[in-house]
């Protein structure tokens, strides 16, 4: 099963790099914010696999707090974008 686990981890790494591409190249600020939100959710998946690898359960605590912090950050950025006039 360790080969399967490596395939999972590499698939998640590829998705994280696709999110990083969108963060870097996004033409508008909401694109970057969407990509940051997705990156946070993918990191939670990483935490689940890491806890399954090592057999320790405190990595899932990191996942829980990471998802809540990503939620707060995304809501703050969305409210910030709503106030700001955007012309391009």
């Amino acid at each position, binding site marked *: *099963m360790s080969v*399967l686990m490596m*395939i*999972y981890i590499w*698939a*998640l790494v*590829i*998705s*994280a790099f*696709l*999110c990083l*591409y*969108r963060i870097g190249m996004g033409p*508008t*600020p*909401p*694109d970057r*914010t*969407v*990509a940051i*939100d*997705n990156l946070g*959710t*993918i990191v*939670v*998946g990483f935490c*689940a*696999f890491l*806890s*399954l690898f090592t057999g320790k*359960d405190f990595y*899932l*605590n990191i*996942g*829980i707090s990471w*998802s*809540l912090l*990503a*939620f707060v950050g*995304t*809501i703050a*950025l*969305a*409210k*910030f*974008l*709503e106030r*700001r*006039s*955007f*012309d391009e």
Partner: protein
Amino acid sequence: MSETIAYIMMTVGVLFDLLGCVGLVRLPDVYNRLQAATKCVTLGTCMILLGVFVLTGFTAMGIKALICMFFILITNPTSAHALARGSHKAGVPLWPGSVIDEYQEIQEKKS
């Protein structure tokens, strides 16, 4: 048997994550990207966490995976909704090929 089910769930979850991120790169618009990426990545990560729960059972790790899944299922659609509303109010243009914009019509009707 339950191990096989758990690995199938994790495979489906990782595939959903990967395809959601491909959609995030490939699609032309903020709203299309939001629609592809948020739903796929939410479901994919929830499937991974559910696979961890099925694999470990009612241990500390399994219960924490369930709590994490619950939080993701609540917070992620909420933040996607707020982002769509914020980017529409900020005036980010739609893709030229899109056919309908009901939120704009409602705003015009109100004012």
